[in-house]
């Protein structure tokens, strides 16, 4: 029997009293074993949401494997405890612990936290507080872990800057190892210069931003004006790019959770980045260029993954799976040669067209789970504005194929409050639903049997996108447009859900916020805000009071059209695409001019140095190429 530490024994005492205790247990298949003492440098990898959400995240599994591939380093996992567990830890004054060794998070050298959504920011504070780590960087001791944040939201880490020691921009595989090695050298030299010196050294690593060395300034009227930095560090921090996905480590033996997770399946990453250029999309702008995994590599790791995990389902994942150049041949090969019985493939994020539906049909996805597509906007005019390269014909073709393949379930994702949107665009969304029903009854001679669900998200303008200047639509107007849509939808068989405009407002304020919002985040968290992305936990009250207390206005950040020459607090964080490109994309948006994907058309001049004009550094794969 394992030797259980004192903390471990105390944890065992509270586990009978919490929901789903296995999520705090660790010891899953694929979890790292061995002893804590045998490593020199330890990293707690945290996902600031529940175990169920965090364990579905591929990035965490990748970094876990990369770090644990080295004997001297050790990575363990941490998630945000659900509220019942958090209460138990507090009432017994127990610190938050890692799943593997049940060590207090505060005993690690690093605490790495991924930022996948602005609505997890209060959970970041929750993690620090439950770990008994001082929230503010300035209050932390040399013995406290270095808090490093990364992920898509790190591209505007300013609202979290006072809580983070370091921010990692871009791909983490190589960056994390350089950071850990830099740390080891600094430790071996007996930590010269304290934390400040380590910040300076780390800031030399491409992709590392040390907010302590940067100081934002505001003008008399309280607007952000500029950011200054200390000598010896770059004034603009470039993101890190992993050039070749085939050479990066891929977790073919991931940690397999016992507990139910959001996605209970294996994941293979087809490619990273996306150049479709949807003008609202943050990942599509900041994770350029497109880097494809080779078809052979995809097939290899899929087979290995199936054998190693026993998963019944493997998802071929990326920002737009059917844009993968060899998708057809890879799916054919895999369907024919899947090593274990009854293993199914799934393709999330389908492009809206017939080719994509055909590919999905090959893996029986369409028949089993139905068709899920995101046209985002209802009218061609608005789709041109947002550069969503989907035409009415594409949509019709996709539906025709899906219905003839036996699909009875249609899920549509729309946005509302997009720039230039009018009532006619909303009514056009209803017309798309109507057309789906007509096509279905044409195939089946009846409309019954088709289930349609329409999900409407209130548009959240994101930094580093062509719409970073745009205001967010107000809650009242959003509600009116939702009602307009519902009024035009046929009754029966159509289920409509829409986002909570209040949480979307907070998301928008944080997304384009500046460093002053740190006080608001802390104050909201102190008032009980936590798990803001969960409707049952979100408290607008806490946030409104927090904004009031700090004398800041969420609408100032979310609902204001920003000036073309206005400096932004996130622009020293450089994802590669230039402000000029974003601005020209914004102008094209207002003229309704689409910008084609540079994978199949000319270079759009986004500013990202991808090496190969028009090809965007894409790794050529064997097999057939399909060009839409």
């Amino acid at each position, binding site marked *: 029997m394992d030797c259980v530490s004192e903390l471990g024994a105390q944890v065992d005492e509270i586990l009978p009293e919490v929901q789903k205790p296995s999520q705090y247990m660790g*010891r899953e298949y694929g979890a790292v074993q061995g002893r804590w003492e045998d490593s020199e440098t330890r990293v707690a990898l945290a996902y600031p949401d529940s175990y169920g959400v965090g364990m579905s995240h591929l990035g965490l599994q990748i970094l876990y494997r990369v770090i644990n591939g080295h004997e001297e380093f050790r990575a363990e996992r941490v998630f945000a405890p659900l509220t019942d567990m958090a209460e138990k830890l507090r009432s017994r004054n127990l610190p938050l612990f890692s799943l593997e060794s049940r060590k207090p998070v505060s005993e690690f050298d690093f605490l790495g936290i991924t930022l996948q959504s602005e609505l997890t920011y209060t959970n970041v504070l929750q993690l620090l507080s439950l770990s008994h780590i001082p929230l503010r960087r300035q209050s932390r001791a040399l013995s406290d872990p270095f808090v490093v944040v990364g992920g898509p939201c790190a591209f505007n880490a300013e609202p979290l800057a006072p809580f983070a020691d370091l921010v990692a921009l871009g791909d983490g595989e190589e960056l994390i190892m350089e950071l850990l090695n830099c740390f080891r050298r600094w430790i071996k030299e007996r930590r010269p210069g304290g934390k400040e010196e380590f910040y300076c050294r780390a800031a030399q690593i491409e992709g590392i931003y040390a907010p302590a060395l940067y100081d934002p300034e505001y003008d008399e009227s309280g607007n952000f004006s500029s950011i200054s930095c200390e000598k010896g560090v770059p004034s603009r921090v470039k993101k890190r790019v992993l050039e070749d996905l085939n050479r990066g480590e891929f977790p073919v033996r991931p940690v397999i959770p*016992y507990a139910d997770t959001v996605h209970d399946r294996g994941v293979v990453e087809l490619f990273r980045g996306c150049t479709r250029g949807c003008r609202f999309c943050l990942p599509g702008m900041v994770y350029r260029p497109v880097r494809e995994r080779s078809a052979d590599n995809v097939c290899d790791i899929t087979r290995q993954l199936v054998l190693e995990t026993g998963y019944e389902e493997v998802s071929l994942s990326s920002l737009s799976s059917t844009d993968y150049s060899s998708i057809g041949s890879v799916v054919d090969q895999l369907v024919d040669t899947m090593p274990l019985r009854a293993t199914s493939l799934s393709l999330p994020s389908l492009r809206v067209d017939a080719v994509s539906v055909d590919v999905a049909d090959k893996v029986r996805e369409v028949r089993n789970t139905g068709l899920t597509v995101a046209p985002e906007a209802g009218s061609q005019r608005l789709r041109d504005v947002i550069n969503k390269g989907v035409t009415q014909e594409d949509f019709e073709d996709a539906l025709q194929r899906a219905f003839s393949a036996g699909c009875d379930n249609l899920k549509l994702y729309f946005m509302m409050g997009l720039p230039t949107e009018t009532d006619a665009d909303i009514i056009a969304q209803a017309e798309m639903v109507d057309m789906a029903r007509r096509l279905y009854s044409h195939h089946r001679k009846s409309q019954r049997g088709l289930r349609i669900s329409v999900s409407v998200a209130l548009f959240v303008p994101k930094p580093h996108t062509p719409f970073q200047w745009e205001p967010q639509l107000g809650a009242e107007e959003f509600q009116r447009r939702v009602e307009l849509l519902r009024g035009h939808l046929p009754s029966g068989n159509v289920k409509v859900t829409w986002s909570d405009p209040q949480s979307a407002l907070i998301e928008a304020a944080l997304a384009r916020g500046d460093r002053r919002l740190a006080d608001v985040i802390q104050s909201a968290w102190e008032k009980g805000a936590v798990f803001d992305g969960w409707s049952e936990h979100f408290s607008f009250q806490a946030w409104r009071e927090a904004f009031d207390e700090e004398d800041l206005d969420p609408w100032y950040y979310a609902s204001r059209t920003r000036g073309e020459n206005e400096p932004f607090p996130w622009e020293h964080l450089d994802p590669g695409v230039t402000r000029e490109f974003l601005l020209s994309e914004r102008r094209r948006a207002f003229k309704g001019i689409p910008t084609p994907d540079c994978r199949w058309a000319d270079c759009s001049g986004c500013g990202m140095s991808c090496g190969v004009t028009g090809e965007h550094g894409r790794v050529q794969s064997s097999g057939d190429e399909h060009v839409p």
Partner: protein
Amino acid sequence: MNMCPESRVVRQCGKRLRCRLSVARPVRWVSHLEFMGMLTRAVRRTAAPVQYSRGFNPRPQMSFATARPVGLSSEAEFVDFTMQRPYCPDEFGEALDGSMPKGFSVSGCKAVSEDGPSLMAALNAARYELLYEGRVPQLSEWQAALCEFLQRSSIVITRERHNKPDRRLDIRPNIYRLRVSSESCGIRVLADLGLGGENNVRPSELVSALQAVVQECLQATQEVRRPAVHRLEVYRREDNQKISAWCV
């Protein structure tokens, strides 16, 4: 003690393989549903010719003796696997043992008759070990207390049920035997309780009922810590005979 009609056990390969699994203390927080999911993937990793169910989501055909409550460690989780063709039990047991996460293990695997009853229908009793560590009463006090406990004509408890109102029921008829011994680490109580269906007594219910008794004979203000509970055995109780799970 164990009656085992030899005819039931098929020594050689078979299409119905019965495994005895252990759930060690550190992994006892895994629920029954999660345990089934873990086994499904472990079985798939072995690539052994297990029979799969038909339908959109084919699953390996497994049938369980009983659902293990969350938090209970066990060395007697019996599962029957249906194979596509006769398969060597030793080979299957070994492969399954090697493909489960640390903390779960296979302690035996045998082929059993294909037309025998299901484990769930056949088994009706289980033996648990309750280990009281730390400051606990003396053995003699325990013996007296348990004697008194068993002499009660009824022991009524309140059972909480998921999405249903609580239920009051008498567990005394289904407490078959209690034995107590002194071990180096504390006091060990062996309890034979009803298993499954109407006769089921959850070990936690016995522990709660015993808690008052224990507290009383300790005659102190200090709270006695709840014991570590472990499932030792599941069996069929028939005319006061004990039939092993291998033989039902």
